[in-house]
């Protein structure tokens, strides 16, 4: 993909993202009804799209990793890395928004009983280790392949961890905290608009970071050629 197209693509997506998010939040706050049974429900419109976007980013990173291992083409390494970077950023946001939601619903900043939150914590740990791996390994084909394999392990870990967390609840004897809002159609529509906006935003940031990193790489290559 040529740089100009990518830059234009990123600009386009940013505008689209802004539009969708503004529309989504407007719908969420002014059109969708209040949720009974959950005082802080509106965070749902932020937290869940962010979380789902993080999953999507990890999945995209895993896909690029698979392509790298399949074709051995170096460009997939950067694409996979940037995708996972997005995933970690959105993952951190998911943890923060989730924590805020817990605070407003139950009065605690953290709870082990919220499965999604715990899963995110585990994944956040895993993908943070991904960055440690990249940081400690000298750059080259080996680092690219190793990162790709680790990224794929992360994708496999998602369902396995989720299962583990569910199983752990059976012997940890949790204090049962529930939130039980009734979801109505208007809420669903607003949610999907917010979700779309978040995904597009992630896409825009992905393209921006990718072109930035590629420019860096080109610069380094040119510098090498000149010395």
């Amino acid at each position, binding site marked *: 993909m040529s740089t100009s197209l990518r830059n234009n693509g990123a600009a386009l997506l940013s505008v689209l993202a802004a539009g969708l998010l503004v529309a989504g939040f407007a719908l969420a706050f002014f059109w969708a009804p209040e949720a009974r049974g959950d005082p802080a429900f509106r965070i749902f419109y932020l937290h869940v799209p962010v979380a789902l976007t993080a999953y999507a980013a990890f999945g995209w990173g895993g896909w690029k990793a698979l392509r790298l291992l399949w074709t051995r083409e170096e460009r997939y390494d950067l694409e996979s890395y940037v995708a996972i970077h997005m995933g970690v950023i959105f993952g951190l946001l998911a943890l923060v928004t989730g924590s805020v939601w817990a605070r407003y619903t139950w009065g605690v900043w953290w709870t082990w009983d919220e499965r999604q939150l715990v899963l995110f914590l585990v994944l956040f740990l895993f993908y943070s280790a991904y960055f440690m791996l990249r940081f400690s390994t*000298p*750059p*080259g*084909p080996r680092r690219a392949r190793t990162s790709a394999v680790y990224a794929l392990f992360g994708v496999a870990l998602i369902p396995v961890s989720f299962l583990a967390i569910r199983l752990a609840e059976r012997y940890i004897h949790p204090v049962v905290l529930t939130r039980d809002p009734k979801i109505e159609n208007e809420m669903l529509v607003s949610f999907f608009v917010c979700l779309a906006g978040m995904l597009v935003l992630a896409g825009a940031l992905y393209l921006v970071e990718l072109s930035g990193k590629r420019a860096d790489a080109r610069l*380094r290559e040119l510098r*090498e050629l000149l010395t």
Partner: protein
Amino acid sequence: MIRARGLGRRFGDKRVLAGLDLDVGSRELLLVTGPNGSGKTTLLRLIAGLIVPTAGEIEVDADRAHIGFLAHEPLVYRELTPLENLELYGRLYRIPERRERIGMLLERFGLWDARHESTAALSRGMLQRLALCRTLLHDPELVLLDEPFTSLDAAGSELLLDELTDDARRTIVVASHQPERLGDRPTSRLALAAT
């Protein structure tokens, strides 16, 4: 036997080899010279298939079972005896009549008496001879030698030279600081420059 076009390899930001073209026919003896850091070891590792190029391409007409590589390190397990080490490699290279071949090589390189000793106790010269046994164990068509003369004493060097010239079927690539040891045996030479 070996063909390279525009071969290059970088480690991080450092380019060790660049734009190398190479043609080695079978049964040739190529001598590679160059100062430290010029990429001699890297070139041999590329030929052996231990590393992949980051630029250009390389084609070698021998697979792993037919390549012998004498590397910088002896690549033997210190906790095992010479015999056990060669037994292991003998199995991995699926050598027919393993025992006989191992015995013959140990004898040829003067290691027969030390075959049950711990490899950690061997002198550097003996270790290098063991590495040679490992390299030649599977009777490879293509032999790659990285600074073979550095740790060998005079007798060992003689043995190596005999071994190299005895069997004219082999294709040999030698990287060495001491090209005079090979006399006029090399059929072609390659001088690498430091990058």
